[in-house]
């Protein structure tokens, strides 16, 4: 038993922020149930087959006849009902699994309710996620990056697009994978059942930094979600300290503003992650670093260090510029 313990070690990874078996979302739970049904049915059948095989080894053989085929009839007679039962069992089992698969698939495909409470558009880029919370009122549209917040129990309709190559959107805790294909629109529905913090990972190899393309998923209560949404709708606060003001001047007039946008400032380019509420996120650079001051310094000073090949260039900031830029970015809560 003690020797078998290391074999159980991988199971320890099954109950984390990135787990397929948690059943934290409706689709994920449905799929998990189907998996359990399949496991039970196939294991029972395996046990039956093995029992039969082992029994056949220990069965007493009748005396051999010199004429081949003479004893076959008498020997096989008692097994005929068993054989018919076996075929019937296999047919029933396959029919059962097919029906279970069909019903699960229908249940997963079931459309979200008509009231479109929550519509999110996710655009994949090499190697980050561009997020838009859509609304019929343009001033209530939220743009963020590398994080989504979802209210618990409410289905979110998600439209998926790609700007460059094929990516795949996968929140293992909540639902299955869905590809993001350039030139096409695909969609999926996320319906979280449990409040929690989950991690999504690009699930289709998309280039050198495929592994560093994660998405933070926060499932929270409707009240918390609305508070988050209201906060996201506010523009960036004006810099309060002289250092932050210097950073504001740099960020909004120099290289940063050529690609990034910060709502409420002149920086409005759309090709890189939106920075309006950067400091309120949990991670930097699509899940590459946790959001801390030290990691912000490392990322801005040398973006090509931990994530070589990404499209953020080494700007070559002077130390005083770096200090002020970080001081400003940290105010973007």
């Amino acid at each position, binding site marked *: 038993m003690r020797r078998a313990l290391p074999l159980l070690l991988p199971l320890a990874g099954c109950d984390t922020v990135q787990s397929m078996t948690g059943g934290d979302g409706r689709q994920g739970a449905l799929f998990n149930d189907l998996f359990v049904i399949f496991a039970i049915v196939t294991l029972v059948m395996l046990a039956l087959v093995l029992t039969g095989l082992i029994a056949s080894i220990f069965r007493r053989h009748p005396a051999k006849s010199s004429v081949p085929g003479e004893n076959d009839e008498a020997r096989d007679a008692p097994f005929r009902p068993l054989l018919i039962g076996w075929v019937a069992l296999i047919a029933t089992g396959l029919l059962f699994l097919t029906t279970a698969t069909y019903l699960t698939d229908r249940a997963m495909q079931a459309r979200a309710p008509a009231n479109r409470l929550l519509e999110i558009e996710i655009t994949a880029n090499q190697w980050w996620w561009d997020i838009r919370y859509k609304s019929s009122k343009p001033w209530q549209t939220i743009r963020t990056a590398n994080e989504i917040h979802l209210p618990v129990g409410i289905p979110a309709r998600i439209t998926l697009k790609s700007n460059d190559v094929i990516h795949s959107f996968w929140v293992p805790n909540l639902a299955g994978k869905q590809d993001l294909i350039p*030139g096409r629109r695909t969609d999926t529905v996320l319906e979280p059942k449990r409040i929690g913090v989950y991690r999504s990972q690009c699930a289709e190899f998309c280039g050198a930094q495929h592994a560093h393309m994660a998405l933070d998923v926060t499932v929270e209560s409707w009240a918390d979600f609305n508070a988050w949404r209201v906060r996201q709708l506010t523009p960036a606060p004006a810099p309060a300290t002289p250092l932050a003001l210097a950073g504001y001047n740099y960020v909004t007039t120099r290289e940063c503003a050529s690609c990034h946008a910060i709502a409420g400032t002149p920086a409005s*380019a759309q*090709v890189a992650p939106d920075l309006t509420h950067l400091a309120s996120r949990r991670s930097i650079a699509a899940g590459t670093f946790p959001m801390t001051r030290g990691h912000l310094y490392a990322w801005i000073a040398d973006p*090509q260090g931990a994530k*070589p090949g990404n499209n953020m260039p080494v*700007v070559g900031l002077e130390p005083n510029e770096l200090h002020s830029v970080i001081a400003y970015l940290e105010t973007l809560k």
Partner: protein
Amino acid sequence: MSSRFRVSLILLAALASAGCEREQRDPRGKPLPEDQSNVAKGDPRDNAYENVSYQLAQGQRLYGWMNCTGCHAHGGGGMGPPLMDEEWRYGGRMEDVVATILNGRPNGMPAFKGRITEQQAWQLAAYVRSLSAQPRQDVLGSRPDKMSTTEPATISEREKVVDETPALPRDEKD
């Protein structure tokens, strides 16, 4: 199969694997030292940017991102001069194009110094020169990176066109 034949097969495979090395990329874009003795042959950065497909592809990306198309279209020109012919108002060498991008030129070309990094300017210059087929042909991509995207006819569920009159604005509860 004789053992000698097998050995030569293995050697051949080993030889072929030498071609597997990936093109070297320099993601940080360290500026190369300018060798003054070689000035006659041009800036040493010419080769580092112009003859590397990666740099051309990055330049192509930036060409769209920095809205070069706004004036130069996709090389055919518009408000700005065309870039796909062999006429260069301010010189067509890499250094000249980089200088044009970074410092701007009279009558409309804005200066991008401080808006993009020097590395990006060199990548852009390499791509601009590739529009008139200046770099080596084996470096050029055979097609643009970006697809021309129109919505496919296969999408079954389309956004409904709602007939909105000013008197009855559509209102959603959210």
